[in-house]
């Protein structure tokens, strides 16, 4: 919202600079986000009369002018073709600075000069040079009645102004106008507020013959005031009014519309002016309809207004969408001679609904939906009528209609001074509190219990509770002045949550495994989400920001694949990423919200080569086993490695299960993923469900020192020939199971396939490591165990011992 400082100063007498005022407003809670200087004082610019124009002896395109600037006659060289004797022109005298910047952004200061041997003592200016317009074809020629020597500022009625862009918070409808802002400022500059809004005299006549006004939906319209101004000449507004509106970014239209806008920005009461002759049946009905209505607003756009929206209607139907915008059918034009001024109070949420559904926010709707002063309607209409009468030569009908079915009841809110100090940490006395509230126009009375009964001014609908009053006291006192304790007490902290400790431990582990953390979008496209999981699991947003981001991720793998795609396109070769984030799946196993499982997962992903081709040798592409080894390290770190079951699911995936729960997956990106995410390289991705692990208590590993083995291990190598279809993981599991406690470790040191083994056969060579904590093992101890294993593998998998 724009506020002109010159305009503001109409209501408050203050000498402080615009910058100081901006700071004060900001510290009052009306944050000035931008301060812009506009216009110019035209210091050193005067009206000159061109007395004589002669050709320049040494230049064809220049002329010498004698210009009377009141006290003296100056020779000024001019290059404009339109200069002529007898003209009144704007003259920049020596020492003045042009208000408009030159092409390079700097500002030209006029000096005495000599051009091709002739003196020039000033400059005759064009509109462009004065920053007044776009016309650069020649010098600006002014009204011939102007006196030479008159300051240009006066002739143009120009002034320098400062405009504040205020980021208005939704709780401050009162400050959505100049008087409202001035009121806040007055509370800290010790100056009283002057307003032109006064009580309106009782109507002398009835308006019944002119207009009838009725409110059908009184819950949506508490008050409707109508005033009529006749004999209006609709024309351009005077300079002062246009300037005010232009300064806050409004386009002047005509004197009637401009006055309604002026009053809106002065006191915050939206007004509407109808062409009286276009109001059918001499009547206004405020009502809503049960069905959608098509209606053309005065911006010539036909809109479908939803059922339930409030309309202003005449005898024929809607003439305005209440509180939002008037209709084209009753718009004030140059032909208008008699106007009806509407000044109403509409219910905020009704206006808000209409405005939202039309996606149409206007200066009016903005104010209505926040809540305007319910006592201002008649005063504001009267102020507008007076101004219109003054500017258009019109006459105000000596009467008005004030339909007022629901009247505003002033509210008194109790305030305890002790509570003020309790909440703010201040030590304010009653007098100070009363004084602050008084400046904000609260009427404060101390009741018999010492409680302050504060009557809320009608323009502050936001204030309904004691705490709201405390805020008022605090902000005027200035939060920066609130004494701060030397120490801030705090309570005995609880230990950090298991989840927090766990997640951070995993983050550090992933980093120490050499992974770079990424942060990917939680929202994927439907297609991407479809690659990751069945659509039945998807959670969608109803109003996506784009089709690229519609669906919550069910896995972190998608984000990884996208990050890989992005980086491969930029010639990256070694991608080793991790992410910890939330994933979302429709599920009966709800986490927080009914029907949705929201878990935190850890993703580890690899793509490309761990080493580029260099003098040491060829590039070494990542394999799934690089990732597997890191994933195993994670499980090992958790101390659950031995309790995990590893199940293959097809050729691309290994599932890790703990007590029947899938706590991790290891995947090779299959063809469909590579195609879907547009990758031409292998990618590998593992995901660990941290929430599930946390739930299973898997991460709570109390570390207690275990003595290291005193006796050496005994290693035994055994190679088995099996069918190609037999999984090494299954063999390993069986070996462990069969051998029992004495077997500490099983590793595979060779995998071989070849003709000599027979068709579809392979050989897996295991190294079995045995350990007994009580003695040194020898072959005699181990042999029976190995025998058992060999028999079991043969029986279960048809495995033949090779060596």
């Amino acid at each position: 919202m724009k506020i002109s400082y010159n305009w503001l100063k109409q209501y408050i007498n203050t000498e402080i600079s615009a910058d100081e005022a901006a700071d004060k407003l900001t510290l009052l809670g009306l944050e000035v986000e931008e301060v812009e200087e506009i216009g110019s004082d035209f210091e050193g610019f005067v009206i000159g009369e061109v007395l004589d124009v002669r050709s320049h002896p040494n230049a064809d395109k220049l002329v010498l002018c004698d210009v009377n600037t009141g006290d003296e006659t100056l020779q000024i060289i001019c290059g404009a073709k339109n200069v002529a004797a007898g003209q009144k022109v704007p003259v920049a005298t020596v020492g003045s600075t042009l208000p408009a910047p030159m092409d390079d952004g700097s500002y030209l200061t006029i000096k005495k000069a000599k051009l091709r041997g002739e003196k020039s003592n000033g400059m005759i200016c064009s509109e462009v040079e004065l920053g007044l317009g776009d016309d650069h074809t020649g010098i600006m020629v002014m009204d011939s009645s102007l006196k030479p020597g008159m300051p240009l500022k006066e002739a143009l009625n120009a002034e320098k102004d400062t405009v504040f862009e205020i980021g208005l918070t939704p709780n401050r409808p009162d400050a959505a106008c100049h008087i409202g802002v001035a009121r806040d400022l007055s509370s800290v500059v010790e100056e009283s507020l002057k307003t032109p809004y006064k009580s309106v005299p009782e109507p002398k006549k009835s308006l019944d013959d002119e207009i009838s006004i009725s409110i059908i939906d009184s819950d949506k319209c508490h008050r409707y005031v109508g005033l009529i101004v006749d004999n209006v000449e609709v024309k351009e507004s005077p300079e002062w009014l246009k300037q005010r509106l232009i300064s806050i970014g409004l386009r002047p239209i005509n004197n009637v519309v401009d006055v309604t806008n002026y009053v809106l920005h002065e006191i915050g009461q939206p007004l509407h002016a109808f062409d009286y002759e276009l109001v059918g049946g001499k009547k206004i009905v405020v009502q809503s309809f049960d069905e959608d209505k098509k209606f053309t607003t005065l911006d010539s756009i036909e809109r479908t207004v939803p059922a339930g929206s409030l309309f202003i209607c005449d005898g024929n139907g809607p003439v305005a969408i209440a509180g939002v915008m008037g209709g084209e059918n009753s718009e004030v034009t140059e032909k208008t001679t008699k106007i009806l001024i509407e000044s109403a109070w509409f219910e905020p949420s009704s206006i808000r609904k209409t405005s939202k559904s039309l996606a149409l926010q206007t200066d009016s709707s903005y104010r209505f939906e926040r809540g305007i002063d319910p006592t201002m309607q008649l005063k504001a209409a009267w102020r507008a009528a007076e101004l219109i009468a003054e500017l258009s030569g019109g006459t105000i009908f000596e009467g008005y209609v004030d339909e007022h079915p629901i009247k505003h009841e002033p509210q008194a809110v109790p305030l305890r001074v002790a509570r003020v100090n309790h909440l703010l940490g201040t030590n304010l006395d009653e007098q100070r509190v009363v004084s602050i509230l008084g400046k904000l126009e609260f009427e404060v009375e101390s009741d018999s219990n010492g409680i302050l009964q504060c009557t809320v001014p009608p323009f502050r609908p936001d204030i309904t509770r004691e705490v709201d009053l405390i805020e008022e006291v605090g902000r005027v006192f200035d939060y920066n002045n609130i004494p701060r304790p030397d120490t801030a007490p705090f309570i005995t902290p609880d230990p950090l949550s298991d989840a927090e400790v766990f997640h951070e431990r995993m983050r550090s582990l992933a980093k120490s495994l050499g992974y770079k953390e990424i942060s990917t979008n939680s929202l994927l496209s439907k297609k991407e989400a479809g690659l990751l999981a069945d659509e039945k699991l998807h959670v969608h947003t109803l109003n996506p920001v784009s089709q690229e981001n519609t669906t919550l991720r069910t896995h972190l793998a998608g984000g990884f694949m996208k990050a890989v795609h992005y980086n491969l396109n930029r010639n990256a070769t070694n991608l080793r990423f991790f992410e910890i984030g939330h994933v979302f799946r429709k599920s009966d196993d709800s986490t927080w919200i009914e029907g949705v499982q929201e878990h935190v997962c850890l993703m580890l992903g690899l793509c490309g080569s761990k080493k580029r081709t260099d003098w040491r040798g060829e590039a070494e592409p990542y394999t799934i086993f690089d990732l597997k080894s890191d994933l195993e390290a994670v499980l090992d770190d958790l101390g659950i490695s031995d309790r995990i079951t590893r199940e293959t699911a097809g050729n691309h995936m290994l599932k890790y299960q703990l007590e029947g729960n899938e706590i991790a997956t290891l995947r090779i990106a299959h063809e469909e993923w590579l195609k879907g995410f547009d990758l031409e390289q292998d990618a590998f991705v593992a995901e660990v469900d941290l929430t599930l692990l946390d739930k299973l208590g898997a991460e709570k590993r109390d570390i207690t020192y275990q003595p290291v083995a005193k006796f050496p291990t005994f290693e035994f190598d055994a190679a088995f020939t099996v069918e190609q279809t037999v999984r090494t993981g299954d063999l390993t599991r069986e070996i462990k199971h069969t051998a029992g406690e004495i077997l500490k470790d099983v590793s595979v040191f060779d995998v071989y396939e070849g003709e000599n083994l027979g068709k579809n056969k392979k050989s897996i060579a295991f190294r079995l490591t045995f350990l007994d904590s009580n003695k040194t093992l020898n072959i005699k101890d181990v042999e029976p165990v190995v025998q058992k294993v060999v028999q079991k593998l043969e029986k279960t998998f048809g495995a033949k011992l090779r060596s």
Partner: protein
Amino acid sequence: MIDKIEAIKQEIEQFNIDSEETLEEFRLRFLSRKGKIQAMFGMMGDVPNEQKAAVGKAMNEVKNLAQSTFDQAKEELASAQKKTFGALDDISLPVEPAYTGSFHPLTQALNQIKEIFLRLGFNIADGPELEDDFHNFTALNFPKDHPARDMQDTFFVRKSDDENTDDLVLRTHTSPVQIRLMKEQAPPVRSIMPGRVYRNEAVTAKSYFQFNQVEGLYVDEKVTLGELIETLVMFSKLMYGSDVKYRVRPSFFPFTEPSMEMDIWWENEKGGQWLEILGAGMVDPNVFEAVGIDPEKYTGYAFGMGVDRIAMLRYGIDDIRLLYDNDIRFLQQFES
């Protein structure tokens, strides 16, 4: 005798030591107790007295020769690797730096924030990113059909006209975690709540549809606004240096009353400007009522800040999209 000595000398000179084995052979043959040198000195008795001086000198020379030959050969063998110095042994050959793990700048900024608040006695809490209307709005004193809801463009996951079915939204702030925490735990409560939040905003250099916040909450019997400001000042000093210039100013949030924002002075080429770094306030009594805490007995403060913004400020990142592009050339700059 001299001939014998000369013969040993020649034998030493001709002995080829080219390995550990031959070195040992040399030692055994000449230098050991049963070796030729020792035997040679044993023959001294046979030498006539008048020749003893000359023979002794010659014998010593041979002994020294044997010892020095042995020492030299031993050293040469030890440094045999130096001898095979080849093209690939050039230590100046370049290599790629090892690939190291790193934290995302958002994590790094968050860690710093967490560390400060842990020092100030806050715990850490979390909650879901998919929230219901009650936790995200209603309990936080956002009335339905109130312009305050416009402050946050919301992604809806479920919208319902049925009053018994709550709308579902992607949380627009981490404040719903406050509600969950206060419902779960009786005061005192002192916690921060970091997490990802969502706003339905177009992706530009300045805005993104997801970002990260840290919210803080302290509820106890005598918490004041002065204490809140003091806590925020402590945070700013720890985060931005003890000479940080700051101010607080009134603002509006539905869930706090009074509400404020804190700015810090940020130097730049043009001199400097106030930059908003966080919003805060005293917990609104309506919020306490929504979670069943007596607002007469307890007061509390809450604050919230954007981690993305803090990270951008800290690292001079001028485009928020960089945080979510995951360009490795970007991520590499935050190794620490």
